[in-house]
């Protein structure tokens, strides 16, 4: 985590909410996620100008402009790359990368793998609704194999993508799952994720009430994880491999050193480098 600017007056969650009206459907889980994020920022006593919220494309990826932080609404699937560049170049900022399951696990899968592995001090939030919301209802990697859509009549028949297991396998240092229906719990976990050095991954079950109305039922399915947070990858692996997809909590927290190449510590002037070319 980067040093939050410590200021006199405590800051409120409201101070992180912008005046723009979200384009989200009434009831969309992403409203709660937005609340949780702003709460987490307030808990950490951050200042909006020292936080950057970086996203890709999708309903969920609209989130940056709904905060009062610096926002970056990039291209589909590349939020983690943009966030990585930003954080490495500006280690003083708190960088939160956010987006959807399509953005992060489908087109963005490679950056997800390598962000976990690289372990730059970022927090990555995926608002997972098991569907492509923005493009009106195609299966995403986390969509159940039997979910019917125009594009996949009869269902995809594909095994779902297990984000937490993949995150662990590729080296994420902090792995959690939350449910948008519990904004306070989610806020706590996001704050923990930001506080924890290195790459922190928070998968948030965030219902798409429009295209997947049955996800309203998630509030019955989500339940606290039955095991405590572990720092043993092998143990976490075994547990996560049999995870039901609704375990809520911080499931893994490692001790890997964050990756931060030395930026701004150079001792030479550019002109000093000329020597190597001189004849």
């Amino acid at each position, binding site marked *: 985590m980067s040093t939050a600017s410590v200021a006199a007056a405590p800051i409120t969650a409201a101070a992180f909410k912008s005046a723009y009206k979200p384009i989200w459907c009434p009831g969309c889980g992403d409203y709660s996620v937005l609340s949780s994020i702003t709460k987490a920022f307030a808990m950490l006593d951050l200042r909006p100008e020292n936080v950057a919220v970086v996203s890709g494309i999708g309903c969920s990826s609209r989130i940056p402009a709904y905060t009062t932080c610096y926002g970056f609404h990039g291209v589909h699937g590349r939020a983690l790359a943009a966030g990585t560049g930003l954080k490495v170049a500006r280690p003083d900022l708190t960088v939160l990368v956010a987006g959807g399951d399509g953005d992060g696990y489908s087109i963005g899968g490679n950056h997800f793998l390598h962000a976990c592995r690289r372990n730059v001090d970022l927090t990555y939030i995926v608002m997972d609704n098991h569907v492509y919301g923005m493009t009106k209802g195609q299966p995403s990697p986390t969509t159940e194999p039997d979910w019917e859509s125009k594009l996949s009549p009869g269902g995809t028949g594909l095994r779902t993508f297990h984000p937490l297991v993949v995150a662990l396998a590729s080296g994420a240092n902090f792995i959690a799952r939350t449910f948008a229906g519990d904004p306070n719990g989610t806020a706590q976990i996001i704050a923990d994720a930001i506080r924890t050095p290195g790459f922190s991954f928070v998968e948030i079950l965030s219902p798409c009430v429009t295209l997947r109305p049955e996800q309203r039922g998630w509030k019955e399915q989500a339940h606290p994880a039955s095991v405590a947070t572990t720092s043993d990858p092998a143990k976490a692996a075994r547990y996560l491999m049999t995870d039901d997809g609704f375990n809520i909590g911080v499931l893994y927290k490692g001790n890997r050193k964050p990756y931060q190449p030395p930026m701004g510590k150079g001792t030479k002037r550019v002109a000093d*480098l000329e020597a190597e070319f001189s004849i």
Partner: protein
Amino acid sequence: MHDKVKAQGGRGVSIALAGSGGAGVMTAGNMLLKAAAQAGWYGLMVRTSGPQIRGGEAAALLRISAEPVECLDDRFDLVIAIDWQNIHRFADELPLDAGSLMVGDPDQGNPPEVLTQRGTRLAQVPIKKMAKAIPGSWPNMIMLGIAAALVGLPLDAVKSVVEAAYGKKKKELLTPNLAAVEAGFASAQTLPAVPQLAAVEPTQTPRWLLTGNQAAGYGALRGGVRFVAGYPITPATEVLEWLSPALTKVGGTLLQAEDELASINMIIGASFGGVPSLTVTAGPGLALMAEALGLAVAAEVPVVVLDVMRGGPSTGIPAKSEQSDVSIALFGLHGDAPHLVIAPNSIADCLGATQWAVHLAEAMQSPAIVLSDQFFGQTQAVVDRPADMHFIGERAKASAPTEAYKRYALTESGVSPMSIPGTPGGAYTADGLTHNERGVPSSQAADHLAQLDKRERKLLRHDYGDYWAEIDGQGEIAVITFGSCTGPVRDALARAAADGIKVRLVSMRLLAPAQPERLSEALRGVKKVLVVEQNHSGQFHRYLRADFDLPGEVRSLRHPGPLPIHAEEIYRKITEWSLM
């Protein structure tokens, strides 16, 4: 040695050192060039090798001259081969004639027919035997001595380079190899003559020995780049390899990305954070970056992409030069996406042009593509120390933004001060969606048009000064070219001038935004225009037709890589045409 002839004016002497991979021809070539440089000559050296990853065949192609040289000559004066193994594969790259001299080792068989059929003279030196006779020495040092002697490079100059190389660490290698150089030098005295280097004085002004890839890297630093992300690709990798330690020294950093999609998005993220940023790639990688370059246009985030062009399409010919990414660089983004395209016109200019690109990108908050190529990138050259143009990357920043801050304000210049994360009151969301002045997404026709106008305007209103092109000479014939064709064009024009034919040269450094008025001005009075480029479909020519009004009759001289466009071809075209 027989009658000594001096090399013709600026053409200097051209030497190829060839042999199986691992025989050390590159080392010998490097030493020859360095020795010449230290003794006051200019020169350059191209490395070429077969498809094998290691081993195979290799050749160092050199041109050394009393005057600055920017390309290989059309022909070689001298080829020295340690062996002839597969050298026929380089036949295209080794134009010889009856005036040339081949030196070979009689124990290694004969040169391939494709070389001898040109009537080239052949001389024999038992290179390997001579090396064997000096225990601990290598044949390539014999070769080095022969080459130096034949072209008239002082023995001392060569010896001091060899001393510098082995003197410190590998002392046991020094004595035998110095002896080998001397033996080679001595053996050359009985060989037929080749043109000799014109005499030079040791120079007072500083000279550099570097490749275009190094020059570009250094230019980036001079321009202010402090963040680089990149993914290895031939022939651009050395820029990254040079920059990685260099950035650390000056307080920047380099990330190796997982792919080019990551590279470009990383640098956009870093530049959004206020740090001038760059990536380096070649054609296939540039193609992968096109989508995010559109984001940089729309969100107005300055970034520089250095494209070191190679043979295309697709994987093409990765290690050979071609100017065939002109179209994609100019027109390869989706939507209406005006941006900067800049082409260095010499190895040294890889420095200035890249630095300028950083400066322009930052000044206009726009992506800039720099079109270098494999020839520039991987050729080592002796150049005058490039002056620092003081093209510093400086972005208009919103220093004390208020609540009403408009990130994409419709200013007259088209440039809107940018608020950098960390600045209180200046928060906004950089967006690739069409947006209004505040950056709020909009699908209104008026907002879309206003922002498209603004982004076009900021590029068009900027004063690029004289740096937009190199313009030279007078006359009713003009040659328009860019990039690494500039060298051969200059050579051709010098030959034409010697014939009394005046030709104007326009070598364009700024390809986009197009400067039609400036070009018209430069071409005033011109009746014939020859467009020279190294690709198959005339990409530069088509771009000139699209964006400019060219005067008089226009002809295109082009062919694809891997062979360079030779000065001779251009000279012939011009002289023929000038007679019509």
